[in-house]
């Protein structure tokens, strides 16, 4: 019995906190729907409770109503305007998948915002990864100030330079294979003689080197 009491005590504290927060968040929406005595959060909570029981109309109203909240949450996380749609879609799909985790006695807005924040951070991270790859290219561009990106000739020159840099960074065995077989166009037996490696090892090294270079320039294989 005493355990039950402590449990509700804790949850009461938690829901009080999250409800307080969600009231602050939903002020603009609230003013749009002034005529109803219940708060928009409570209305959405009731819709979600109905949706959990299988009420499709309540569910669709709830999802449509959630879009603005998701966009606001994503924008607060720093998601750019043209990527908000992705976050909204991902969040709606997650909401659908985990709708059984919502507890109708608690704030719907806090529940939704937590999911939207997570999806927004996921979106920012995947963008960050893409950006860092682009930044890498910019760095290459800056390090060759002669390059004039308007001319196709310099562009291909740059591409060759990047390729040379990438080859230089390969492990020694792979670099050797690319240099001998690829760049100097030696035959397998010539290369084997020059490097003192057997032809099988050279072939394997060349194959690995090409794979590594493909991954570097075209992302994941």
């Amino acid at each position, binding site marked *: 019995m005493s*355990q*039950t009491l402590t*449990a509700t005590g*804790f*949850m009461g504290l*938690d829901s009080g*906190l*999250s409800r307080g927060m969600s009231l602050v968040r939903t002020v*603009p*929406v609230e003013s*749009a729907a002034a005529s109803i005595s219940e708060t928009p959060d409570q209305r959405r909570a009731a819709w979600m409770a109905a*949706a*959990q*029981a*299988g009420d*499709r109309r309540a*569910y*669709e109203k709830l*999802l*449509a*109503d959630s*879009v*603005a909240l998701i*966009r*606001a949450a994503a924008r607060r996380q720093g998601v750019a305007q043209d990527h*908000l*749609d992705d976050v*909204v*879609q991902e969040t*709606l*799909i*997650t909401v*659908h998948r*985990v*709708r*059984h*985790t*919502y*507890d109708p006695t*608690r*704030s719907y807005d*806090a*529940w*939704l*915002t*937590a*999911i939207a*924040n*997570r999806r927004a951070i996921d979106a920012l991270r995947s963008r960050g990864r893409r950006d860092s790859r682009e930044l890498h290219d910019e760095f290459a561009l800056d390090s060759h100030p002669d390059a004039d990106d308007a001319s196709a000739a310099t562009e291909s020159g740059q591409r060759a330079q990047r390729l040379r840099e990438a080859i230089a960074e390969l492990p020694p065995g792979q670099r050797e294979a690319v240099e001998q077989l690829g760049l100097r166009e030696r035959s397998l037996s010539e290369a084997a003689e020059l490097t003192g490696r057997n032809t099988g090892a050279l072939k394997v090294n060349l194959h690995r080197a090409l794979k590594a270079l493909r991954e570097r320039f075209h992302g994941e294989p």
Partner: protein
Amino acid sequence: MENPETMSDPRPYEALIDRLGTELVPVRRLLPPWLRTAGWLLAVAAIAVLLLMHYGADPMLRRWAGTPDLGWAGMGAVITAITAAWAAFALGVPGRRASWAWLPLPGALLWIGASGLGCLRTWVAPGTQVASMHQSADCLVFIISFSIPLSALLIVLLRRACPLRPVLTAVLIGLASAAASASLLEICHSFDAAATDLVTHALAVAVVVAVNAAMGGRLLSKA
């Protein structure tokens, strides 16, 4: 603040909302975190009863009566197990505050503090001895081998949940199961809290938490 033009324009999502609507089926709601915690503790309690039936409560009580700090350490481990499991279940519900993760801290401090104090004692707990390295290894094996099923059970109980912080949740799972295993070890432990023993306990807890953080995070992150 909010841009009124973009505020509530659900039209671009109409197709998606419609599709999700057609897929809607009634769902069974997730039980409250404290109830799921109680379910897991029931499994721990069942193991404790089995161990008590085998070893009896006398050696444990005698040890605690002679050296209260060992009793406090055991109490700390039990509190840590309960609060860490509860925090893990709470974090499995979106919208719960991340500060739930601090819940096991007081219990853990009691557990670590009292065990550390045991090392400073100059007398040895009655009916025990200071464990050798070899015997300490048994404690390591005990804690780790009991932690595996207890962690697995927690992960299974959390798979229907939606832990938005999977790694933090996994750390709590590891802490809960390691603390529960250390509590169970108290029943059949015949060693005093000497430095070697404390180090093995700490090592076991660290291993369990680290393995959970590395693997559990991946298992949970599908939510």
